[in-house]
């Protein structure tokens, strides 16, 4: 497999509690990887280790390596803001920034000084709103506050905002769990469309979403990776007993 992310001996502690135990895995490039498992098993912790969001929690301790294209993002000489530029995050609850729709999408571009002229900014904003499937609905009111959008639209805005900084990897932390079914469908459709351009890693709490989206599957339980592999293998023929039990809905 062409691995985009490699995790080597990752252990994460919150204070004295160990949240992740000895994680070793690989995330394939330009596929949708789904992390599934019962609540509390460490899925979100693992996801947040990929964009160095764990350090935002006081008392979090990280041991081990997470390599993106061969570079350990936790090395001392790595700039965390660059890591987060390459690894984008779509959160569970959409949080539009307190600005207009246009400014939300342009925010990341300004931060990283990615464009030069006003026209370039405008074109980029339009492009990413189109990619997220939001352009038609907002093109007449780009300068309205972002909070005026519905929650489904807000999540698509967050997608546009995150894609604008041209990441290589998209992380999704249960990105549809706060949305209504139609908006969920929208987002899932977009993520599948973007599959060929980005490596996507999604934490999901429903088995059905995992089956709909996943090319590659990771099953976690109690802070450990129980099984991982291509979706058709894991779903049809799970190697581990616990995986089989989870797939049958036993917990």
């Amino acid at each position, binding site marked *: 497999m062409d691995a985009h992310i490699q995790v080597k001996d990752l252990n994460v502690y919150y204070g004295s509690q160990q949240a992740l135990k000895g994680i070793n895995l690989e995330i394939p490039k330009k596929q949708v990887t789904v992390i599934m498992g019962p609540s509390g098993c460490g899925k979100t912790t693992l996801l947040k280790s990929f964009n160095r969001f764990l350090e935002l929690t006081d008392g979090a301790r990280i041991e081990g390596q997470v390599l993106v294209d061969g570079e350990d993002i936790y090395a001392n000489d790595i700039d965390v803001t660059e890591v987060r530029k390459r690894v984008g*995050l779509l959160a569970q609850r959409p*949080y539009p*920034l307190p600005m207009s729709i246009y400014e939300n999408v342009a925010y990341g571009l300004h931060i990283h000084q990615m464009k030069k002229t006003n026209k370039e900014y405008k074109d980029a904003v339009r492009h990413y709103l189109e990619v997220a499937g939001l352009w038609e609905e907002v093109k007449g009111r780009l300068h309205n506050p972002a909070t005026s959008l519905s929650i489904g639209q807000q999540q698509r805005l967050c997608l546009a905002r995150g894609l604008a900084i041209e990441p290589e990897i998209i992380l999704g932390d249960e990105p549809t769990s706060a949305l209504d079914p139609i908006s969920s469908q929208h987002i899932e459709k977009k993520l599948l469309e973007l599959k060929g351009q980005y490596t996507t890693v999604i934490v999901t709490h429903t088995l059905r979403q995992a089956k709909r989206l996943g090319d590659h599957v990771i099953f976690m339980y109690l802070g450990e990776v129980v099984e991982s592999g291509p979706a058709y293998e894991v779903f049809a023929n799970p190697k581990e007993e616990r995986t089989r039990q989870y797939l049958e809905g036993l917990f």
Partner: protein
Amino acid sequence: MSQSSKTTTNPTKLNREGRADRPSLLARRRQDQFAGRTFFIFSLIPILLALIILIMLVVRSWPIFQAHSLWDMLMGQEWKPEEGLFGFMPFIAGTVWVTTAGLILAVPPCLLTAIYLSEYAGNRLRAFMKPLLDLLAAIPPVVYGVWGIIAVVPLLQDWLVPFAKKYLQNVPLLNSQNPTGFSILAGAIVLAVMVAPFIISVIYEVMNNIPSGLKDASLALGTTRWQTIRWVVFPQALPGIIAAIVLGASRALGETIAVLMVVGNVAQVPHSLLDTAYPLPALIANNYGDMMSVPLYDSALLSVALILLVMILIFNIGSTLVLRRFVKDWV
């Protein structure tokens, strides 16, 4: 810890053995109602007190409002009660100068400190700061005044005043006729330190109330912490921050003793930070003793108290209303 009701179906006071060992439900209910009514009377106290104080001030200052127009008093520059001259302007100007200067000195460091505490500092640093701020807030005003006399006034007198006399004669805010260390600047420095713990705590609360999901959304795009603060947190927190400053101003306006001890108490409209001033609270404090001898003097001083109080209350209530909307569980 809490009593479970015994045999609720039995309202009589005696239990099966004929002994009254615990109050029955009826008795407990009656206690509850009685206490409710008593407590209600207690709760009237703050309301009555507030009304009485306001009414007293208005009634006792009424005579002078009848004798002189408010406008004349606010604009009048001469304070000679024996001659019937009640001009508040020098004192109002003094108050405005000291309070404004104090806030200008206090707000930037307090804002930066509060931001640092809320966004950058670890738990241990925060645990260290809380007692420190509490201690600073607990120091009595008269001790701040003493500190002003021991440390601030001599500092100004020995360093700034000679420097200003020689080089700053033409600088607008710092030239002065005959500066000693007792000046608006000294009052402002003392005031700034006095209101600092308060402003820091309030701004800290406001910033802590910004949902972390919002900050995360910005950080996930690869911003530095400061960029997130500047573009996302600060705009959200701004109304609360302004309310904190206004609240600090209301505290500063009412501070009497500490400022009085270092500010010179000469009634003139100030023109420079190194001039002396005579703020409104000091006017009341210094003269209340001999006010009975001169007609309308007591009424004038009480009107000063009333004006001061009204200003403070407007600031106070205005900012509390804003803060109630911005901070969860703000009292």
